[in-house]
């Protein structure tokens, strides 16, 4: 657990850089994290995934798997990996300010 300053605001992140409290998150923070991560500028495609992840998490209490993202988010698995080459579920969850996805799939 550590504190970091994102978009001018102090937030609490865990050891892997995921938000401890999703309500602290703002879109500006995602922009800043993406730039620092080497993802660069967030495109409409990125936002579609990030917003979907957040919505799912807030509704169901857990972020979606890549399989579900591919089926329901409207972004195919191929595109997901192009948008987030370091792993879509993990990277997008971090940028969306929600916990790291659990599970093996």
């Amino acid at each position, binding site marked *: 657990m550590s504190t970091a300053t994102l978009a001018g605001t102090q937030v609490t992140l865990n050891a892997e850089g995921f938000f401890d409290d999703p309500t602290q998150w703002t879109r500006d923070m995602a922009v800043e994290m993406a730039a620092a991560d080497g993802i660069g500028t967030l495109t409409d495609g990125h936002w579609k995934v990030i917003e979907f992840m957040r919505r799912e998490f807030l509704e169901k209490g857990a972020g979606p*798997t*890549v399989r579900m993202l591919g089926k329901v988010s409207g972004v195919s698995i*191929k595109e997901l990996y192009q948008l987030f080459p370091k792993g879509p579920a*993990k990277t997008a969850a971090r940028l969306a300010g929600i916990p790291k996805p659990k599970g093996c799939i």
Partner: protein
Amino acid sequence: MPEKTEPEKISKVSIIISKGSLEGIYPGLIMANGARAEGMEANLFFTFFGLDAIHRNRIDHIKVATVGNPAMHIPTLLGGLPGMSALATHMMSKKMEDLDIPPIHEFIEMISDTGAGLYACQASVDMFGLTREDFVAEVKDIITVGDFYDLAAGGQIIFT
């Protein structure tokens, strides 16, 4: 005292799938998919009976082995009864669907879409008298063991 350093992360895996039963195929698929999900490079190499996992006509009919497997916890003679393998497969598939683990065919498509490379083993393909047309479209190529080692260079190899 020497300074303790974090072990270097694995950045690439090449996974060999050599068995054609449901329980022989899934672990390799889950590991390959998981590797991609962690941002690692991943290759899958199907050899011997593992070729069934990418065989056009067999991919949708992969079954659990109910004989000769003490961990099934049923007597071998019972496991050999007609329909036992189908029943066990049905039960296990349902359980996996509940856990959001895709059926093998969908999993193969998904893993290919993640950017992992799927390859068939030349020696096994020759031995079983198969051709490129026998395999699903996701298979990139039929390669020799030498090609496999070239592909695997710089990463870890996992045999299943």
